[in-house]
């Protein structure tokens, strides 16, 4: 695929904010540099120009690990308490899914399971795989890995589903002693997990997938 030139080889940088294609100009106050350590600013929107997102590996790993640490209490601790006259019931994410499956509707149970369990796990596995393979400069399944990253970015925020469900039920079910729903700490950890995984996928630079040794053959 040598017919497809890459910006890094041509001395061009695309502004990630506005998309402007910029060229390195020695002596120019804003455009002199290589876009790695020195500050270059996009002439159109003023954002910092960088060849690659800064410290992409370190930042993504840090955010991903932090997200995983939050994900453990999010699953172990209950996210919601349902209290009625003589019964207190604490729900975890997975018990909520089971309850939906048994009492409500199995199709919604599948949706919640996907949003709360499958999507976060997919993000951990996918971003972890991308980080490891990109660091190695692996040329394995390049197009598929690029597609995987786009998938992670696209579906990431749907994990917020369970947080909204708990919030809505808390506000709705307030029948004094008869029936009450309260949020429990698990939901806070889960909300943080979602935010951290979103930040992690944003700090990963998909161009690193293609920066390996033999991507231009």
């Amino acid at each position, binding site marked *: 695929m040598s017919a497809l030139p890459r910006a*890094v080889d041509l001395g061009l940088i695309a502004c990630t904010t506005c998309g402007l294609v910029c060229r390195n100009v020695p002596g120019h106050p804003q455009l002199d540099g290589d876009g790695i350590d020195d500050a270059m600013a996009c002439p159109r929107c003023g954002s910092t120009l960088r060849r690659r997102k800064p410290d992409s590996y370190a930042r993504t790993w840090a955010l991903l690990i932090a997200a995983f640490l939050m994900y453990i209490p999010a699953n172990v601790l209950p996210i919601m308490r349902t209290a009625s006259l003589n019964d207190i019931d604490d729900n975890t994410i997975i018990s909520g899914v089971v309850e939906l499956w048994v*009492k409500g509707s199995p199709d919604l149970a599948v949706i919640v399971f996907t949003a709360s369990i499958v999507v976060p796990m997919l993000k951990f596995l996918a971003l972890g795989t991308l980080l490891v393979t990109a660091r190695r400069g692996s040329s394995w399944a390049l197009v598929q890995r690029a597609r995987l990253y786009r998938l992670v970015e696209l579906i990431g925020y749907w994990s917020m589903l369970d947080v909204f469900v708990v*919030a809505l039920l808390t506000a709705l079910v307030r029948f004094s002693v008869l029936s009450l729903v309260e949020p429990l700490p698990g939901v806070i950890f889960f909300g943080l997990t979602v935010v951290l995984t979103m930040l992690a996928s944003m700090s990963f630079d998909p161009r690193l997938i293609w920066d390996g040794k033999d991507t231009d053959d």
Partner: protein
Amino acid sequence: MGTSSPEALLICEHCDTVYRRRPLARGEVATCARCGAELERHHAMSTNAMLALILTSMIVFVQANMWPIVTLGLSGQHSSTTLWGVIIAMWQEQAKVVSVLVAATLFFFPLMKMLLLGWLLWFGKAGRRAPGFVPLMVALHRLGPWTMSEVFVLGALVAIVKAHTYFDVTADPGIYAYAALTLLITIFAGVDLRQLWDDLPERTA
């Protein structure tokens, strides 16, 4: 000049491949030959049409936030809530983090997005850059994936089904307003707002 005329080249954000730009036909989408990511898509919508949609979204947004979303009934008692009811309830129930998350992703960020777009398009209609065009365009870009109204609609559906086991559930107008808002958001998802940079060039005074 440090910029090689912006119209001429295009760089794939996902793999750094450089392309020569060519005009797209109606409805055409340019994708990267190396990684398959979308490069650019043709703007099928005029500025006026977008402005009309933004105004509609604003009206629907006000309704979605003022009208109750769902009402529950239990032995003669009724309880309903709006989005702000949810935010306040979470704050009072010691889940302040969640309260802030809900307020940001379902109220403040969508509101900012609509106001920014409305402002930029209002001036764009006359072919001019709105005051504060550059920082506002950057802000619009940063808001990116942090608006989650469509997730909330699905969440409301799940909450209704869960509550249905124990209570009488009535869907209120707010939920329909939210559904309409989701539809409008989906239409907007297909619009590449970056084209405003090219459509409205800087006036060299």
